[in-house]
């Protein structure tokens, strides 16, 4: 029994254990199933691959994928990678697939973004493609393409057709992918249902003018094709008609457009609401109504309108030196008319004599005058305008405020003696607020001393709230430039005393960020090193913000990209990628031109003494040669008497050095009346900008040129000096510093240039000389639009200088007391000028406005002094000739047109001493 019981117990125990194991197993299995449904078990990445348009690739964007083999699976990293890849602008669709169990294989599937190469319009029925292109915004040539844009593009074309009168046009769109590229041509097929003829135009409302007069002002007329765009312009013209009759608030709109499909015509009805007539009268002084009318065009508060009008009239009169003008204004209403009346009492016209300040102690008078840009009077001419005088009190108050004086008061008063007035500014400075304590807290990455150097505020210095704010911005910028991101700067200001403040700059520093990778995209033609050499920053550097922006600027300056975008993409704490996205521009340019040619340099020609010929020009430029940002151009010029071909190669670097280099080669041939010449040459020039503003330039040129004459009908000595047979090899260095406000119409500033040329007899050349030439010009604005300019030139040479390398002077651009090139030594036989080895020239000129109505017309008086000497040792001041003269100038965008009459004070008797010139451009 016991044995049986024991066996029974053993059997039961085994059974229990067995079923227990099975139950545990089933529970384990069940929980595993549930677990796998509800949670993503941590898995490792086995591999990451990239497929672009179903093909393996994408090495150039691998660095943008932040999840790598061996990493734990992370949705965040995958999501960030997708966003980074999208920012390259190269892909329109991105998907990530995973395969595998515990070890996952990730695949990034990318679809290339397509770009529109060309847009074609077919069947556009007379509407120019240009007009359709102007109305197309969603698709542009060079822009990105997507199917979703097509519907909008069709709507835009339909609208462009509608405003040209093609209502109900049918527009279909097709696209054609260019093989082996990511470009697409888009074709718009247009089928219009024709246009509508204007059957009639009618007006409703209170017209004021006769319907016929209104119709005559419109381009939309009976019998003409109806174009909504033209009707819009007509409505504007009609409004102008009404405004001219003082109906400033006229409203005209299209009330009805009745289309007749069968007749293909439209009847238009326009509604005219003139609203009230606004008559403005200004009595007591001559003030143009155009000054006041625009104020009343819109519906405004009348009190404001009157005040605004008074203020404009007073400002206008003060500008004319009626300093004590006053205006009274009023409004009268009658029926549908508003009369606005300004009664002006101008007072006497004044002459402003000097300016003085009283009560000033913080600044000296000189400091105030400099800060306010007040220049002293010249003789009787006041350098300050009447209206500016009344603005100066506010300017003084602002100046004081920025220096810590919040309560400064300034009153303008006058000392009068007849028409002469002396403005006196009475200044009550008030108390000054100062910074007692200046602290910088929270900075760890940089020393307080280095941070304090970045700001303008100083302990003991003036306190001005906006300056503190500017200092906050300076500190934030400093951190960015040092590669720190996420910093925040706040200024905490506390009043310590009545006049004293403590300022604490509280800095919450971010983190220094390093550039992990620099990814460059969009360059299909440009070589990678062409872009890389412009980078001011590299992988591993801290993200210096100023260097990143400088990189962007340098890439833009290459001139081969239509778009440059440099973006920082945060990877993780302290790490970011720099994504440089470029869009390459057009590579080819072809130009054709027809013009007139003169024998002198561009921007300045003397048409009394020149040969003018029609000439045709053809030009071809190819940019970004071999992807190196180099440019080659070929220019051909052809006329009846000449042929010229110039080949140029331009590149931004010279053997890796950042010097803009030009290689020019030219061939030219010209037939003159008494001889012909052929010239060929080659030159290599390098230009280096010495300043960021590119106003300082160093230029070096190596030149080899050879001239031959043929078909001679005169003695060689009679040949124009620039065509004289000679061969020359030379090297020259030039320095140019141009600080003129405008190179064509300078209103101030200066220009300096200096050239040193050494010609050495290389390659059987005949040249052997050393020559220097320097020029300095300065422009002074002495009064309103009264400009005084000084030009000085010195040229010195030595050695064997052929005639065409010597110095010459005379004519409208050098010495206006002699004909072109006629100043200086002459050939004893032919009496032709032979030039010299030394030149000294001074020009003084004063230009001034003539008539107020003609702002571009001015008068001039000038004094020229100078001469040319055969040898350097013959230079003497006594040998200089003098010329006086008068002139008229008419300002054009290319420079002034000059009419000048010069009188040579040292002309020998029985020779011409008066010379007349017509020229374009400033003297140079």
């Amino acid at each position: 029994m016991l044995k049986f019981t024991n066996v029974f117990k053993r059997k039961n125990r085994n059974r229990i254990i067995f079923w227990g194991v099975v139950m545990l197993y089933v529970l384990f299995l069940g929980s595993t199933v549930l677990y796998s449904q509800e949670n993503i078990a941590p898995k490792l990445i086995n591999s990451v691959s990239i497929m672009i348009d179903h093909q393996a690739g994408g090495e150039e964007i691998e660095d943008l994928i932040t999840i790598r083999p061996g990493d734990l699976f992370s949705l965040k990293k995958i999501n960030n990678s997708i966003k980074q890849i999208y920012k390259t602008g190269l892909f329109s669709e991105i998907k990530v697939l995973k395969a595998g169990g515990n070890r996952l294989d990730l695949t990034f599937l990318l679809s290339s973004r397509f770009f529109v190469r060309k847009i074609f319009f077919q069947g556009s029925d007379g509407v120019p493609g240009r007009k359709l292109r102007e109305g197309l915004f969603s698709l542009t040539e060079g822009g990105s393409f997507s199917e979703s844009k097509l519907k909008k593009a069709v709507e835009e074309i339909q609208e462009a057709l509608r405003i040209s009168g093609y209502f109900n046009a049918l527009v279909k769109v097709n696209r054609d992918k260019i093989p082996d590229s990511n470009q697409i041509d888009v074709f718009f097929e247009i089928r219009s249902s024709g246009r509508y003829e204007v059957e009639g135009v009618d007006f409703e409302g209170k017209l004021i003018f006769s319907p016929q007069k209104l119709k005559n002002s419109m381009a939309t007329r009976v019998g003409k094709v109806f174009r909504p765009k033209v009707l819009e312009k007509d409505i504007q013209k009609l409004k102008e008609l009404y405004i001219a009759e003082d109906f400033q608030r006229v409203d005209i709109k299209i009330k009805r457009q009745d289309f007749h499909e069968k007749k293909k015509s439209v009847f238009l009805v326009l509604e005219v609401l003139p609203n009230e007539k606004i008559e403005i009268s200004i009595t007591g002084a001559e003030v143009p109504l155009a000054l006041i009318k625009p104020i009343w065009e819109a519906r405004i508060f009348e009190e404001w309108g009157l005040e605004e009008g008074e203020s404009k009239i007073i400002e206008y009169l003060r500008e004319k030196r009626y300093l004590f003008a006053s205006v009274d204004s009023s409004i009268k209403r009658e029926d549908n008319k508003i009369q606005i009346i300004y009664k002006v009492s101008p007072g006497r016209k004044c002459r402003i004599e000097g300016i003085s300040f009283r009560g000033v102690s913080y600044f000296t008078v000189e400091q105030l005058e400099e800060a306010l840009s007040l220049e002293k009077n010249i003789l009787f001419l006041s350098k300050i305008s009447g209206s500016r005088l009344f603005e100066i009190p506010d300017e003084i108050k602002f100046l004081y405020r920025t220096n810590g004086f919040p309560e400064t008061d300034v009153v303008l008063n006058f000392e009068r003696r007849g028409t002469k007035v002396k403005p006196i500014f009475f200044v009550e400075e008030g108390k000054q607020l100062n910074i007692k304590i200046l602290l910088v807290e929270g900075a760890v990455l940089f020393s307080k001393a280095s941070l304090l150097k970045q700001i303008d505020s100083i302990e003991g210095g003036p306190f001005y709230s906006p300056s503190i704010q500017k200092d906050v911005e300076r500190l934030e910028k400093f951190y960015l430039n040092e590669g720190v991101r996420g910093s925040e700067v706040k200024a905490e200001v506390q009043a310590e005393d009545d006049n004293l403040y403590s300022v604490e700059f509280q800095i919450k520093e971010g983190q220094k960020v390093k550039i992990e990778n620099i990814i460059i995209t969009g360059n299909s033609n440009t070589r990678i090193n062409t872009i890389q050499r412009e980078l001011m920053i590299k992988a591993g550097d801290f993200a210096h913000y100023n260097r990143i922006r400088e990189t962007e600027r340098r890439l833009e300056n290459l001139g081969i990209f239509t778009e440059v975008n440099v973006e920082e993409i945060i990877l993780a704490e302290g790490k970011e990628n720099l994504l440089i996205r470029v869009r390459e521009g057009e590579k080819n340019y072809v130009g054709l031109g027809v013009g007139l040619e003169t024998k002198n340099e561009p921007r300045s020609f003397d048409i009394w003494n020149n040969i003018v010929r029609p000439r045709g020009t053809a030009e071809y430029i190819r940019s970004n040669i071999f992807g190196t940002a180099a440019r080659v151009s070929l220019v051909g010029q052809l006329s009846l008497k000449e042929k010229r071909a110039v080949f140029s190669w331009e590149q931004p670097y010279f053997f890796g050095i950042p010097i803009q280099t030009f290689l020019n080669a030219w061939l030219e041939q010209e037939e003159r009346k008494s001889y012909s010449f052929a010239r060929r040459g080659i030159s290599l020039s390098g230009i280096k900008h010495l300043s960021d503003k590119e106003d300082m330039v160093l230029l070096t040129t190596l030149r080899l040129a050879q001239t031959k004459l043929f078909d001679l009908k005169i003695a060689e000595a009679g040949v124009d000096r620039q065509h004289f047979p000679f061969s020359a090899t030379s090297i020259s260095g030039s320095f140019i510093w141009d600080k003129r406000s405008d190179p064509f119409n300078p209103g101030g500033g200066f220009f300096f240039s200096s050239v040193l040329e050494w010609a050495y007899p290389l390659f059987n050349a005949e040249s052997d000389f050393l020559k220097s030439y320097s020029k300095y010009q300065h422009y002074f604005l002495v009064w309103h639009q009264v400009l005084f300019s000084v030009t000085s030139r010195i040229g010195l040479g030595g050695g064997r200088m052929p005639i065409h390398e010597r110095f010459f002077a005379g004519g409208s651009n050098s010495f206006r007391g002699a004909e072109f090139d006629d100043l200086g030594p002459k050939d004893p036989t032919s009496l032709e000028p032979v030039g010299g080895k030394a030149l000294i020239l001074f020009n003084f000129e004063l230009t001034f406005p003539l008539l107020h109505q003609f702002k571009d017309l001015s008068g001039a008086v000038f004094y020229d002094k100078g001469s040319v000497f055969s040898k350097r040792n013959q230079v003497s001041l006594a040998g200089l000739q003098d010329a006086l003269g008068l002139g008229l100038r008419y300002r054009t965008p290319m420079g002034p047109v000059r009419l000048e009459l010069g009188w040579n004070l040292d002309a020998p008797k029985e020779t011409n001493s008066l010379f007349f010139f017509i020229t374009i451009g400033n003297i140079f």
Partner: protein
Amino acid sequence: MPKKNTFYPGLILFMFLSTLIFFTPAKGEVKIVDGIVAVVNDDIITLTDIRIVQAFNFLGREMDRGVVYDYNDVLESMIKQKLAVRMTGETDIIGAAELGIALQRELDKLNKEFLKIELERFDLKIDDLKEYLIEKILYQSVISRRFSREIFVNLKEIEVYYEGRYLPAQKEKNQKPQPMMKILSEIESIVKEEKAEKQIEEWLKYLTDKADIQVFTDKYPEYFNSLDYARVEVAADARRRG
């Protein structure tokens, strides 16, 4: 012959096969992990973005019990948010300090345990949620600034609502309707809210017409065409939130 005992061998075979089936890695099965679902004026929305917004309820409205917000709903809301914030350019409509306070308020609403689980699920840090929250807060600010002016409801509109919607609804519920004058203010606020929503919808439609929007939901059919998937996700979310 004695009958063979096939039970235990069968059981052991079953256990072996089930182990093979459940624990052998499913090689060859490819699944979409993430991808671009929509592009709004060059600003992308990925599948993960949608899942995060849905999981943390950053839709800008409270999740109602029993209502399934599928991925299409979430995507539509995210597109509207982007349009309202980006196209108006009002990304600095509220100051940094105010934004910080609003952000903290949103984060405080989330259950701590739930937050921990979900952050782990997406491998996110709390700072990573800020971009989604900021968009939500800015959207609410833009809407509030643009549509905060008083909306007027006239008596006629109240009458229309009372007769056309309130009375039938009460009849359906077999409840006795209250007199109109007694529930006037309630009806007024409902009608005002509906009018405001209509104005917002019209404005958003105007922005949508002007924007360049590309949607690729057809590339993710298992997420966007199947409501069942969304129901499972929502149910799982509810369980996580407890």
